[in-house]
């Protein structure tokens, strides 16, 4: 039983770490801040959620339901989108350039309208 749990935990950990590492690679490799936000906002979060599940399972197997871990997962869910939004929005508003390959930019219009209005 214990080894079963351990294996499960190990698998969760490995998956989690994999996603986390990928996200780190993504953050280094991807070409603009907006693309990197994908890596950060999703892979890292998911990776950590997996790890936290592993932790949760590990302690659950010892008869302890560690709700704080669940809360942390919930919290990550709730905050990751807001964080991504805040970062990318501030980047855009500060004129951080989109990468060359970018095919479409609808947001540009909105700010152009804004600026015309304010004039």
């Amino acid at each position, binding site marked *: 039983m214990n080894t079963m749990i351990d294996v499960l935990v190990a698998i969760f950990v490995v998956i989690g770490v994999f996603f986390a590492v990928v996200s780190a690679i993504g953050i280094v490799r991807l070409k603009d801040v907006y693309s990197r936000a994908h890596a950060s906002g999703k892979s890292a979060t998911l990776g950590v959620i997996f790890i936290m599940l592993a932790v949760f399972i590990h302690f659950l197997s010892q008869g302890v339901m560690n709700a704080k871990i669940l809360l942390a997962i919930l919290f990550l869910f709730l905050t990751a989108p807001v964080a991504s*939004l805040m970062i990318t929005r501030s980047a855009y508003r500060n004129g951080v350039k989109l990468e060359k390959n970018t095919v479409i930019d609808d947001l540009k219009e909105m700010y152009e309208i804004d600026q015309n209005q304010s004039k």
Partner: protein
Amino acid sequence: MMQKPNNMMLQTLARLIILIILSFSIYLLLAGHNSPGGGFVGGLMTASAILILYLSFDLKSIQKAIKFDYIKIIGMGLLFASLTGVVSMLFGFPFLKHFFDYFTLPILGEVELTTAMVFDLGVYFVVLASALTIILTIAEDDK
């Protein structure tokens, strides 16, 4: 000048988030004697929650809503902490001697009550109010 951003999503989610953080902070305060936490950590955590409010909304509307004078709370916190020490003195014990006991109460069962908790509560108030005062005073200073 760019117009102000639309913080709708942030404000919507912040309402939810701070509920969790506030409960968690009080937990940290109360559980500190037996697990990680305590007045200091609890106070800062509560301050973080309130800070999220300030970050998501704006100074004026929060000030309208929360009408505490944080500076006075600091003074109260200090009094709280120090008076627990003085009280033990009044009973002829050394300054800051704490007492604790386990009581069996109806419904609640066995609980531990300790004067150290009162002391920690003082810490909590001081830290909470201090963090907020510092942050808000700086934020208010736009001259």
